[in-house]
């Protein structure tokens, strides 16, 4: 199976091209990819710090997976659909979600779930694999309506064990729904290594169960990810059915800020190795520098710009209007039912003057 599904690579860890890309990825595009990866990484590190400082809640970092997320999200068109998990905010931001929203989400604010008006970006999916049938359905609906929008759905290696993975892929295959199933195989579902998650050696091979395309790419190679996703989206739009992409990658850090990866892997050693040899950001940088389109000055400017952007988002998050108790009762239904209205009054009165009411 590993032979049937070799790991496709376009850019070697050393930053050398192994394939022609000119027809697909312009120099400009490559620089844009790089910028997104760097901005996302800076965002991610800042978020981990914010969590440590108690300024946001538990946070799920993605550092190490930037190429997988940025490369795939950049392959989307304007009117497509993006279904992310709790770890895919790099993809979300690359596709158009604001940093402020992402931070609000991690601060426990439902308002952080709302995407910009002109983009179909669903909120982070917490219950594993449940987004997979949604993506199949949204994609299928586009096809029914004669639109050419496609859906891109993210999930992890662990998610492939859930029934919804299977049901979603089967539905999509039967209806040739224009959807791309994008699995970031980062080797772990929290502490459980992929070797305990499944007996199969690849995730891509699971496509065979549904007679759909299966592709395995180096998830730290942004070019390979971009090209595979783009091709898959094209096939999808042409009515040639869904694709399962396995992007082989690694998360450098903890599962979430509540997790301690030293419990289940040789964290320091592994992280060091990966950072030194396979880092997705450095890899692209080497290439860009070799191409003469990137230099230290540009790098410094980019970092400055990114930090400012992140800083601004943090500030927006922190000055966002406080959560109001009354809000908890909004948007449960289009119109409040009588008992929700009653409870809203109860909660608000409690909030307003608990002592007074209580003593009344």
């Amino acid at each position, binding site marked *: 199976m590993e032979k049937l599904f070799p790991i496709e690579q376009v850019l070697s860890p050393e930053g050398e091209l192994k394939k022609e890309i000119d027809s697909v990825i312009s120099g400009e595009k490559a620089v844009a990819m790089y910028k997104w990866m760097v901005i996302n990484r800076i965002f991610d590190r800042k978020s981990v710090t914010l969590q440590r400082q108690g300024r946001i809640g538990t946070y799920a970092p993605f550092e190490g997976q930037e190429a997988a997320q940025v490369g795939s999200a950049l392959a989307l068109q304007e009117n497509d659909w993006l279904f992310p998990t709790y770890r895919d905010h790099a993809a979300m931001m690359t596709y158009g979600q604001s940093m402020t929203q992402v931070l609000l989400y991690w601060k426990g604010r439902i308002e952080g779930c*709302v995407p910009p008006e002109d983009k179909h970006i669903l909120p982070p999916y917490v219950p594993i694999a*449940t987004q997979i049938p949604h993506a199949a359905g949204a994609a299928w609906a586009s096809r029914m309506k004669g639109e050419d929008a496609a859906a891109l759905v993210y999930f992890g290696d662990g998610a492939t064990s859930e029934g919804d993975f299977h049901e979603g892929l089967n539905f999509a295959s039967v209806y040739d729904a224009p959807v791309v199933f994008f699995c970031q195989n980062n080797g772990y579902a929290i502490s459980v290594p992929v070797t305990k998650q499944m007996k199969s050696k690849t995730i891509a091979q699971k496509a065979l169960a549904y007679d759909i395309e299966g592709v395995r790419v180096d998830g730290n190679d942004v070019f390979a990810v971009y090209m595979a996703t783009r091709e898959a989206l094209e096939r999808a739009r042409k009515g040639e059915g869904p694709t399962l992409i396995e992007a082989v990658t690694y998360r450098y850090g903890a599962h979430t800020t509540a997790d301690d990866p030293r419990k289940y892997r040789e964290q320091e050693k592994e992280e060091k190795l990966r950072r030194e040899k396979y880092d997705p950001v450095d890899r692209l940088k080497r290439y860009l520098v070799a191409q003469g389109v990137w230099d230290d000055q540009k790098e410094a400017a980019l970092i400055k710009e990114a930090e400012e952007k992140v800083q601004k988002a943090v500030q927006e998050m922190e000055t966002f209007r406080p959560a109001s108790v009354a809000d908890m009762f909004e948007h449960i239904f289009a119109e409040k039912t009588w008992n929700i209205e009653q409870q809203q009054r109860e909660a608000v009165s409690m909030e307003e003057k608990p002592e007074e009411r209580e003593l009344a």
Partner: protein
Amino acid sequence: MADKLTMVQAIQQAMKVKLQEDDRVILMGEDIGVNGGVFRATDGLLAEFGEQRVIDTPLAESGIIGTAVGMALNGLIPVVEIQFLGFIYPGFEQVVSHVSRIRMRTQGRYHAPMVIRTPYGAGIRGPELHSESVESIFVHIPGVKVVVPSTPYDAKGLLISAIEDPDPVIFLEPTKMYRAEKQEVPEGKYTVPLGQARMVREGEDVTVLAWGTMVPVALQAARKMEQERGWSADVIDLRTLYPFDRETIRQSVEKTGRVVIVHEAHRTGGVGAELISFINDEALFYLKAPIARITGYDVPVPQFSLEDAYMPDVDRVSRGIVDTMQY
């Protein structure tokens, strides 16, 4: 013009009306296409509306409901058939974690205006798990409405309302009543509003609350008690279990001071408990006797040889009325 229709025919009509009227409406489910559904609720609809609107799905309830959510996000109005309520369980996560929450989670940016229709309840000598009545589980889940018709007329009007409702509706169709009676049902479109109970019979002495299959049982018991004992009853068909019709219930309880609740579901944790709690909240000191619950028992619905013993019948409801009246 009104034809005499069974409930299942009336339900078919409701879907037909909406399929004709609104392009966004699609039907999905197991065997609903060429087979017309195992109870024929979708009979003829594939032929009339084609495979893009009436879709035979693979056998996977989570897949069906989950895919329908995706379609709803993208502007369609899926009306999903789950073959029996006892088979919604594999799709339960999609209902609880998504169908009911999309609107809240996206602050109204997306919503899931879908209907999940499913035959429910015992009484047709079905195999195991074909007779479940776990409506209280859905009543407990914030974000979905729960509707149970008990007549052909209501079934059509309520289903049209449910499809038009901007929020997801769990629409429970009492299997036993699919073909139990025919009733005049207007052709074309009309609605019965969600959230309103129906006063089936008016009386003075006792309030009987019921829904679905239990409505005719409650009614017969009320008639019997009136004949035999001269006690008259308000018989109220709740029709919508969430949000239920508080005014109708409260007024009746204030009038009679005696209440019998009849449901097929297991007693412990059934919707009856919530109704008792509502009465506790709003009309406790009107009560002249404890509220009686005449319900299915706290055992899995048995194989069909014992089905009749499981389901409340006229005798059991009558006993409940007697106990309440003679308390």
